[in-house]
């Protein structure tokens, strides 16, 4: 009925079939693709095997390989290319919450600060998650402890933070005065001013005044940093 096919044609058809299905195909199944007279009588399986061999060899240097698995033959992408191919399924990186960005900004500008300081300025509590994320990202670190009861950890920004934002030093951060101008823009942009978040904790009087004094100049970073009490090498107990 049909003409005999040569190994190269058989190979092409086999390749096509393996690529067109999403399941492995057995030699028997592959034999059935051919019409009467296209394969040598009694030699069908041998011919298919020979063609598979050629396909396997020719796959070298390509982005696929011929593999025999339990249920038959299939083409698959070699594992060593996974690092590139996987990027097709990369999820979009999540975005950081406003709370996290505000916490980061406060640490950068007002360092060293305790979690309590941040909470007082932001007016809401700062979740443990946020601190952990920032620490894991390597953007903040514990730089000491404030010498008050409870000895809360003081946080500061890191070199990695500067590197990420392409800043030479903390002085390269835009001065707070400039940011205050941003506020005007924000007020214009936002139709309704955001409702202040519920007050849970209120700013400490002293710190608050200090904020007011220093935020104008934006030069407080260094000054405040002078207060940093380096972490003692051994855990001190001040009982």
């Amino acid at each position: 009925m049909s003409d005999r096919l040569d190994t190269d044609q058989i190979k092409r058809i086999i390749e096509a079939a393996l690529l067109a299905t999403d399941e492995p195909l057995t030699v028997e199944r592959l034999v059935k693709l051919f019409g009467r007279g296209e394969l040598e009588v009694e030699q069908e399986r041998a011919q298919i095997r020979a063609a598979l061999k050629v396909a396997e060899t020719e796959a070298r240097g390509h982005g696929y390989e011929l593999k025999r698995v339990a249920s038959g033959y299939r083409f698959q992408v070699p594992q060593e290319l996974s690092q590139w191919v996987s990027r097709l399924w990369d999820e979009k990186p999540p975005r950081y919450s406003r709370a996290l960005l505000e916490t980061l900004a406060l640490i950068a500008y007002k360092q060293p600060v305790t979690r309590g300081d941040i909470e007082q300025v932001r007016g809401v509590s700062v979740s443990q998650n946020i601190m952990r994320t920032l620490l894991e990202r390597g953007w903040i670190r514990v730089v000491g402890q404030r010498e008050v009861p409870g000895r809360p950890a003081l946080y500061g920004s890191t070199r990695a933070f500067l590197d990420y934002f392409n800043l030479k030093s903390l002085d390269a951060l835009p001065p707070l005065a400039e940011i205050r101008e941003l506020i005007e823009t924000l007020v214009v942009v936002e139709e309704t001013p955001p409702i202040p978040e519920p007050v849970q904790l209120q700013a400490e009087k002293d710190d608050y005044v200090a904020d007011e004094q220093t935020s104008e100049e934006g030069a407080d970073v260094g000054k405040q940093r002078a207060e940093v009490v380096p972490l003692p090498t051994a855990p001190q107990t001040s009982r």
Partner: protein
Amino acid sequence: MSVDTSDDLTPRLVRIRRESADTLALVEGEAVRELPTDLYIPPDALEVFLETFEGPLDLLLYLIRRENLDILDVKVAEITQQYMSYVDLMGVMQLELAGEYLLMAAMLAEIKSRMLLPRPVHAEEDENDPRAELIRRLQEYEQIKTAAEGISALPRLERDIFTAQAEKPELVRQHSEPKVDMQEVLVAMAGVLRRADMFERHAVQLEVLSVSDRMQEILSRVSDATGFVAFAHLFIAEEGRMGVVVTFLALMELIRESLVDFVQNEPFAPIYVRAAGE
């Protein structure tokens, strides 16, 4: 072995014709031997034609192309008769389709009757010649009919071509960190400052309570006292709920830091506080 995978483009009548040399279709047991040669369709064959043609335009086009029907020479009497037969049939047939054929028949009848009337001298200005409109529609339909055949003949997925896929490798999960722009940080800072301003304005009347202040107060009170201070005495009723919460939090913090000790002699007895290590 070739499988008929072509779309349903051929009029069904033609396929029926293949099965038997001179029978087009059987309609209620009677053979229909011919395709229509004019607009008159025997009512009993209507169903077959409705299925065969895509609509009255299709039928008309067929008649014009194959049978050289002169659409200007349709027989009004026959059309009227057909019209009446259709009306009878509409109860049992696909109402919608029959209605479209009917409309076409009426339109042709109108054309015919207009042609029979003596035309005014200034007929050229007759803004809408119904024939021209019909011809335009027929041509437009023919064009689309051909285009549909063209699309049908294109190689397409699932029939002529197949997408090629290989098994995915085991994926390496690369979760990328969120990207942050400096501007975002600045906007966040601006938000904080702005809120802080608002706080300031509103904070004037509010009593300022802080946990760490309270911790210090309590600590000095229990240290100064010789012995125990009653737990209940540390709370100042005038400070309201907020004061109670702050004091309680301060006590919790002090206890956590082992700066104070709590003493209670028996369940539900009054609790006392003292400085730790005393």
